[in-house]
């Protein structure tokens, strides 16, 4: 039931052919599907280097030794298993707008998790708002998707976003570096660039998916407005017109650009998706184009 509520069967079939991609080279054991610059027990030759005491003698290029009388060590390219962590924003700001960003984010997270499961990746889905929530780890194939769907369906929006606290908890809890997918509207009272930069500097590859409702970017209202911040409860009275709407949209886009800069500057990726776009179109459109999936 939960699976059907989140993603329909046809969409799942389309997701079968996709793979989660990451750009960084992470150390790890064999079993992944993205090559790494780190040498290891792979099959494909990568390079030679001088032999050092303690190296495995089985990797010594004996032919080169016979010809040059020097010990060279053969290095092979590996495709390590890299953990994929998906941070899902469950703060109250995800509930505003005519189309719920939270529902959209859950469907998107479900799609990404299904892709990871199909490719035998280890996925960790972590909800967050002010702090990190209880994670859900899944791996081992598509037949493990049902618990994921149940977990996502059971989530409820609550709390106020605190990216700094979340980043601190994340780096403390997950020491092994990997791909970090953050699905959020990145709308909070504080800036989110510094915490994101902190995560990137720790070694995680950022894949930022920013969601917004149309009203978040282009408020349709005119006249006297009494605004209520859904997270902080603060109120603001103002007059709103077309000119103010332009300034607002400009500010919103600037904020998106800053988030995008953080991702790109650190070798990550950024995708901005309005909730008016169907999830299927988002997967095979912007996310695929940004090489988040291939």
């Amino acid at each position: 039931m939960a699976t059907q509520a989140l993603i329909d069967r046809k969409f799942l079939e389309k997701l079968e052919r996709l793979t989660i991609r990451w750009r960084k080279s992470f150390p790890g054991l064999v079993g992944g599907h993205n090559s790494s610059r780190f040498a290891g027990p792979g099959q494909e030759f990568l390079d030679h280097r001088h032999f050092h005491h303690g190296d495995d003698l089985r990797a010594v290029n004996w032919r080169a030794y016979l010809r040059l009388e020097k010990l060279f060590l053969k290095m092979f390219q590996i495709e390590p298993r890299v953990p994929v962590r998906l941070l899902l924003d469950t703060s109250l700001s995800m509930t505003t707008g005519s189309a719920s960003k939270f529902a959209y984010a859950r469907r998107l997270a479900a799609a990404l998790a299904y892709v990871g499961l199909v490719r035998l990746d280890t996925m960790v889905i972590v909800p967050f708002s002010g702090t990190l929530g209880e994670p859900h780890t899944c791996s081992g194939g598509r037949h493990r998707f049902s618990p994921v769907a149940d977990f996502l369906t059971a989530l409820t929006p609550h709390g106020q976003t605190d990216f700094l606290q979340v980043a601190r908890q994340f780096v403390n809890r997950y020491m092994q570096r990997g791909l970090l997918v953050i699905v959020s509207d990145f709308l909070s009272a504080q800036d989110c660039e510094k915490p994101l930069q902190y995560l990137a500097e720790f070694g995680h590859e950022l894949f930022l998916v920013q969601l917004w409702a149309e009203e978040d970017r282009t408020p349709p209202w005119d006249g006297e407005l009494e605004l209520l911040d859904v997270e902080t409860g603060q109120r603001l009275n103002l007059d709103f017109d077309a000119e103010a709407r332009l300034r607002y949209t400009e500010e919103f886009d600037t904020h998106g650009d800053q988030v995008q800069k953080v991702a790109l500057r650190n070798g990550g990726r950024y995708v901005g998706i309005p909730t008016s776009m169907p999830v299927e179109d988002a997967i095979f459109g912007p996310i695929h184009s940004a090489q988040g999936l291939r």
Partner: protein
Amino acid sequence: MFLFNLSLAEFMALFSIASSVVIALYLLDRSRRKVIVATLRFWSAARRPVNSPTQRRIRQWPSLLMQLAALGCLLLAIAQLRWGSRDAVGRDHVLILDTSAWMSARGADGVPLFEQARAQALAYLRVIPASDRLLILRADALATPLTSFDTDHAKLEQALRSAQPGESGLDLSQALDYARLLQQRSGRPPGEIIYAGAGRTQAAEALSAPTNLRLLPVKTRPDNVGMRRIGLRRSATDAELWHVLVSVRNYGGRPQEAEVAIQFGRAPAGFRRIPLAPGEEREASFELRTRAAGLLEARLRSGGNGLVSDDRAVLELPALAWIPVEVCSDQPQQLRPLLDAHPNLQMQFRSPFECRNGQEGGIVIYDQFIPSAAPQAGAVYLNPPSAGSPAPVRASVSNTRLEKWLAGHAIAAGMRRQDLLLDSARVFEAPAGCAAVAETEQGPVLVACSPADQPKRVVLGFHPMSASLRYELAVPLIFANILRWMQPQGFPPSELVASGVGHVSVPVSSDADPARLSVTAEDGAALPFSVHNGAVRFLSARAGKVRVKEANRESIHSLVLPEIPEQVWDAPAQLRRGLPGRVLSSASSRDLWRWLALLGGLLLLAEWLLFAPGPSGTRWPGFPVRFPGKGVEQTSMRRAS
């Protein structure tokens, strides 16, 4: 089309008030659109100060207009908007049927006035429209509805036929006020107030007729000579002599000669012939000597005798009873003048040694001594010695003055003097159950006791015939009050009046307890009464005797004559008279309030669905909606992505 419950001005006023409230609520609550947003950080850049915080604008005109329309529909439903003519709506009439005593009078044709009035009322009943309701009010001294507002003509006719004239006079002013009140509270348009009667009423000159009054006058003016009042007064010099006064009035328009005869114990006691001009009232006086009780009957005979019930009246005369008084005194000559003034006292003077202590009953007076045996009758102790005094003696004083009287006590009735000098007196301690009737500065000197199971006692600490009091006028009064208090049945009323039925006011003692008062009719039925300004007021609508009982006394009121007001109301000429033309209600009015209420409800429902929907409500672009589980309004705008 017209409003049934409200006038147009009332409706407009109510609608204006309600609309103002609705618009004010809109301005207070909905002029500023409430929006929930994810964050306020980008809004600060777009912030522009509010132009004028006090100027508010209505943004949801369709919602406001729908609410105002719904309000108007509901108010119109309350006002009972009707389609049709106002005349087609049934009205409420009140028919005042005169059932006063005068309506029993017969004209020259021998038909009672009441029958004529009843015939007029029945004729009126036949001409009113079937949709009109009629209430029949029986009017004499007290207006009483015979029916409720009813359209059932058979039921109304039955009520009219069962009505009979009473014996009290008509109070038309009260009946008209009551009829107006009934029409105001009926809930339907007021129709006519119809009066069927002869118009002989109290306070006729002060009567103000309502504009919707219709008169069904009785044309016959019967000739009648009747008694209005019989008064008896005992002679001041001869207790056995009664002065009898009979008031007679000529109600007709022709001179009459009345013959008044009185009988006592069925024996003729007097006869007078009195000529009476039209409207004249005269009195015939008689003298009757009797000591016995009996019935005094007065009869009247005249040429014009339209009303029989005021031609005969009977009064019950009380007997002049003897009160045995035993005076035990060494100096009877001092007390004899005090007691001789009362004609119904049967006195026996004895020396203290021969005193029988009231064995014959009545009253025994002990003059300055204490008997060896307890008295068998009510006892009066005059200046008793300290030893054995019925009231303990506190002190003996001399040259003191009586300063204080116990107001309300029968012995102190009429006593105002505060300067009575006492040569010598004994001051008592008032025992429990006794009242200190008179006091000096040092204490009580006159004590009255009325024990529950024993004869009454009065103890005087001074001698009433002492040198200083012998010539005081207050002394005989004190003694008379003492005798009256001890033997009230021995002092029958010196005045008797037979008057008409109706409102009666009887004086009672100022401290009378209403819970211990009772007013009963001749058949024993209790009459409602009120106590106001020291008088019992009640209404007796039927002829007979009415007994007013207080704690220890009873007065009998002979209300044996019918009450006939002196004046006939001269109704203004502009009032409608006679039967109306037949009113036909061919057109019927249609009541629209149900449809208006339904429309108002639907408008409110539509407004609620469109502008304030519930969890599954339809969301219209630009209108506030409520998201599930949040309880706060947000704004939805569907735009093409």
